[in-house]
């Protein structure tokens, strides 16, 4: 009896260690990602000055390494994506959470799953075959550029924005809503003055997560941005972003060259930006915890 108990307890402890080890491995992996990308990236600055890399726009390796165009491009497509996808996604989330009748909600739910299911290269391909020719004919310019990239990304972030903000709208206490209705408020008054302010931290989280998705998207952007390392003079001139430049040039540069290291530093910039967004989300959520 004692011997059996002993072996059972041994198993118990063994599996506990297995689980702790897998959890620790996840932490180890993210540290390794930051370490390797940063180490490779910072090698750039043995040759190039940080000032040139971050604040000048002349990208002409191996002579000039001014990457400001790409940094600006990444921010620009992200802001455009939020402008297109943010309001639409929030309105869609309010519709799903508070306005839609049961049967409409149930039939729309697979729709958001379908948006997630379409791979990002297919979004890029749609941009290439639908939006670029449309902009070329009806707006002007080559069609490639920030505008189309922003529209495509705006559509790509819809499922993120919708699902996160819908959850936070549902989490608002029904008592608050009932009190507002009880005072004779209409649905729009209740939504705009009670529900939305109460759900605000969740809505901010939704928008930030949408931004994180947009700034890190590579393939779809690369296919519609035009891939020209020049500072964009308008929304419809070809330019480039951090991600599109990495995708484009990684294959042509030998590992260990300054050019290649510069691409790694761009990846490191992206990494820092997306980690910063996660920390902001954490702060926002904690803030919500503090004010009930």
């Amino acid at each position, binding site marked *: 009896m004692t011997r059996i108990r002993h072996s*059972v307890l041994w198993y118990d402890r063994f599996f506990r260690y297995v689980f702790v080890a*897998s959890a620790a491995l996840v932490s180890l992996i993210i540290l390794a990602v930051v370490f390797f*990308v940063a180490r490779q990236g910072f090698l750039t600055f043995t040759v190039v000055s940080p000032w040139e890399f971050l604040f000048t726009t002349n990208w002409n390796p191996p002579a000039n390494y001014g990457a400001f165009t790409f940094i600006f491009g990444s921010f620009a497509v992200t802001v455009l994506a939020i402008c297109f996808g943010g309001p639409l996604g929030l*309105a869609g989330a309010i*519709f799903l959470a508070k306005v839609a009748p049961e049967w409409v909600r149930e039939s729309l739910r697979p729709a958001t799953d379908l948006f997630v299911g*379409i791979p990002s290269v297919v979004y890029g391909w749609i941009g290439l075959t639908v939006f670029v020719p449309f902009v070329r004919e009806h707006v002007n310019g080559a069609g490639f550029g920030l505008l189309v990239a922003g529209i495509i990304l705006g559509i790509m972030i819809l499922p993120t924005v919708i699902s996160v903000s819908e959850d936070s709208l549902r989490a608002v206490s029904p008592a608050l809503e009932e009190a507002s209705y009880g005072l004779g408020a*209409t649905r729009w008054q209740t939504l705009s003055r009670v529900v939305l302010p109460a759900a605000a931290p969740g809505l901010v989280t939704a928008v930030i997560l949408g931004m994180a998705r947009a700034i*890190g998207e590579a393939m779809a952007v690369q296919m519609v941005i035009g891939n020209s390392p020049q500072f964009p003079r308008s929304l419809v001139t070809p330019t480039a972003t951090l991600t599109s430049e990495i995708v484009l040039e990684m294959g042509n540069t030998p*590992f260990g060259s300054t050019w290649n290291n510069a691409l790694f530093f761009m990846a490191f910039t992206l990494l820092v930006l997306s980690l910063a967004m996660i920390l902001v989300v954490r702060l926002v959520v904690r803030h919500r915890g503090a004010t009930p």
Partner: protein
Amino acid sequence: MNKYLADRLATACFWAAAAVITGILLFFLTHIFWRGAPVLSLAFVLGTPREMTAGGGVGPQLFNTFYILVLSLLFSLPIGVGAGIYLAEYARPGPLTNLIRLSTECLASVPSIVLGLFGAVVFVWYLGLGFCILAGAAALALLNLPVLVRVTEEALRAIPVSYREASLALGATKWQTIRRVVLPSALLGMVTGVSLVAGRALGESAILIYTAGLSVSRYFPDFDPFVAGETLAVHLWYVNAQSLVPDATRIADGSAALLVLVVLVFNLCIGIPSRILQRRLLGGGGK
């Protein structure tokens, strides 16, 4: 009267937003299949690609897509499920648990192209694997990992505490409780989660370009994990970006439709039935 008008207007706006979102989706799906359907033939789906002449297929790419997916799940499932079990069953509030949660969130937020470069440094260069299926699968596993941790933890947390208490009260140890009581009841939820992860991984491309490479083996099917293995999603990008074949448009149209079809069929076959079954089981008396 004014506030009722405002309310009506707002309601109309929300319906319009929903209509726009659904409209975009329907337009996209119609566009994809309208252009792609004429291309989808058996010769295209199972045929071998050609470099210079028209008429190539995407058979090896389709095979690689699933092969890399299976390999990546092989790497990421044990670790992801293990970490999920730890967070759901063992972790107590404290700095260590916080650190693990934070790292999972951070790993989930890393852009896939950055994970691709990490995979290129570590698997392709330092471990000397070169551009190959194994390197691609290992990099893709990093992308799956945080999502697997989260879905496992959620599936386990959905199991009522009373199940565990009953098992522990009968004298079972913690591991016996997890293996015999918690995991079997959470299995369906975990399958749903894994199917979501797999659906996303099927369409992933940024992480694979510089790990799994842009070419395919001459043999088909080739199970050797040390040869380069371009997937369908990568092929769609490659054909648009730099391919030399004269019928690149046709191949892109067909690849896009096939890719979306594969993801949809995969979700229909695994995701939706398990979701319905799960709802029925939990509704029928699970809780």
